[in-house]
């Protein structure tokens, strides 16, 4: 794997080795991932791209440990997910993974600051301290005056910013984004990716974005292209030629 910034030492944050995942479908199972191998470096924004149904969301799900695999091995920052039990994986996710979902999944009955503080509360922080930290991140993301608003009072772009704040609030090593621009128009999606790149990308953190929106490929450092459950191309974004 080549390195776009040779002067910085990068480590492999996510290593996927020969992973296969099938879903039951009558007598013959459906292959979502076929012997997939893939790496993502820390300090980079890696995009997994490809057409719908190619397996990119399944790959994302197995990387963050929300879905079990049939065979292969997944390491996240040196931790073998296969060697962990359910409780350990859940604990690992709560400490090390930040999520940005396609539909944002902000709880509609909670205010922005309450939504953004959830990952900290899950780790046992007091409500006051968790909300203080969530509020400071929301302020950094330009939502300081809307802390007590509810998600439905915000635009899609603003909701995406809350989702970003929720993903970053507990300072995770791995940020997982599933189609972050799918619910946004082109301009808002562009702004959201700018914000994500600016606020989330750090040398010790890995950001993985699943998308089929070619308009945001320019934000990637590295792109892995999938098709029919396989990674068919993995290269620096500058070398990637779509289609």
């Amino acid at each position, binding site marked *: 794997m080549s390195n776009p910034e040779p002067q910085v030492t990068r480590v492999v944050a996510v290593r996927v080795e020969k992973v296969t995942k099938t879903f039951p479908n009558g007598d013959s199972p459906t292959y979502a991932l076929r012997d997939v191998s893939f790496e993502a470096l820390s300090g980079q924004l890696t995009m997994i791209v490809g057409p719908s149904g190619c397996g990119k969301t399944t790959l994302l799900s197995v990387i963050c440990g*929300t*879905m079990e695999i049939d065979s292969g091995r997944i390491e996240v920052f040196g931790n073998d997910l296969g060697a962990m039990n359910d409780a350990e994986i859940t604990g690992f996710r709560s400490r090390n993974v930040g999520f940005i979902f396609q539909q944002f999944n902000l709880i509609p009955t909670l205010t922005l600051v309450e939504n953004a503080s*959830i990952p900290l509360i899950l780790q046992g922080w007091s409500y006051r301290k968790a909300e203080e930290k969530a509020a400071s991140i929301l302020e950094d993301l330009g939502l300081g005056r809307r802390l007590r608003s509810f998600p439905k009072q915000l635009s899609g772009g603003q909701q995406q910013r809350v989702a970003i704040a929720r993903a970053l609030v507990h300072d995770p090593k791995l940020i997982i984004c599933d189609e972050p621009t799918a619910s946004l128009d082109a301009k808002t999606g562009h702004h959201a990716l700018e914000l994500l790149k600016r606020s989330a990308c750090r040398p010790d953190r890995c950001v993985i974005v699943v998308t089929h929106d070619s308009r945001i490929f320019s934000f990637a450092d590295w792109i892995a292209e999938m098709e029919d459950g396989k990674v068919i191309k993995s290269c620096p974004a500058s070398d990637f030629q779509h289609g």
Partner: protein
Amino acid sequence: MLRIALLMLFRDRAKYVMLVVGLTFCSLLMTQQSSVFCGLMLWTTATVRNIGAKVWVFDAKVEQANEVIPLREIEVTRVRGVPGVEWAVPIYIGIELARLTDGSFQNVQLVGLDTATFVGRPMEITKGRIEDLRLPDAVIIDQVGVEKFRKKGIKIDLGTVFEINDKTARVVALCHANRSFLGQPYVYTTYDRALQYAKPQRKQLSCVLAEPKPGVSAIELSEEISRLPGLRAYERDELFWATIWWYVKNTGIPISFGTVVLMGVIVGIAIAGQTFYLFVYDNLRYLAALKAMGARMPTLAAMVFLQSLSVGFVGFGLGVGLTSLFGIKVLKVGQPPFFMPWQVPVFVACVIVVICCISATIGLIKIARLEPAVVFK
């Protein structure tokens, strides 16, 4: 996460109100019906509570206080002869017909007290003097009688005259007595006069009231008296419960009230269970997101149970509160019967907890089956 769970619940106002209303209705139905049932059962023991003797001696076949098989007068002497008896007096208890001066009539519960001691006297004389019961034709009537006659347009007061089985009765005092099962007023007079009022029978003694000597318990004495052929003695509490159990076993009252209480439980489970399931179902996506973000099943279970139980707590409180208001209102009027012992709210609380746990468990099964990866779909 428990605070988050409560915020999610309280701010979903439509479902929260629906849940609270459902459980309030369920709690109200169960508490109110149980309390009316207890009140009705308490009415059956009015004679026991009004007369209040420690030991009651009946014919051996008598099973409860409102069922009287007359005894021979000699039985008083037999009871007095039992070791451990401090004293024993006769009492007459019977339903007689009272006729007013305008010709209207009213069944009354006539109680004939021992003339010398007035054992079994009314608990509270509200007007007049108990001693005046020794005057000719004297009777004491309770507040139920005053109220019943008032509804018929006749004011009962000291000096009012009416007839009991065609014999003159003159009111010398008014009293307060516990209301009887059939709602007949209590009319007190002396034992001898009661026998004159009563329809002639070969045997007229209703029962013998006895007091144990110091150092002898009422239970021991009642066991001792029960050894006499043809007699059955009850200690006061024993008679109280024997009377209630007789009505429970021999009437359709428990089935009638039990059916309504069961309906309350079913309505509670149906409304609360369904609404809570909908609440969980609507939040499934967010619960899956929490699961993906690292919320473990025990955390989610605690959240769901807290939500369910907090709704149950509010519904229970409102239900019991409304029942209490109902109780305060009806106790002033005197009917329907109402008595809410502490066991009723405890029983209803347990049922509500069960309903909440069932509702929460149904929702939780859905959550447990949820793969966190569903949030990516």
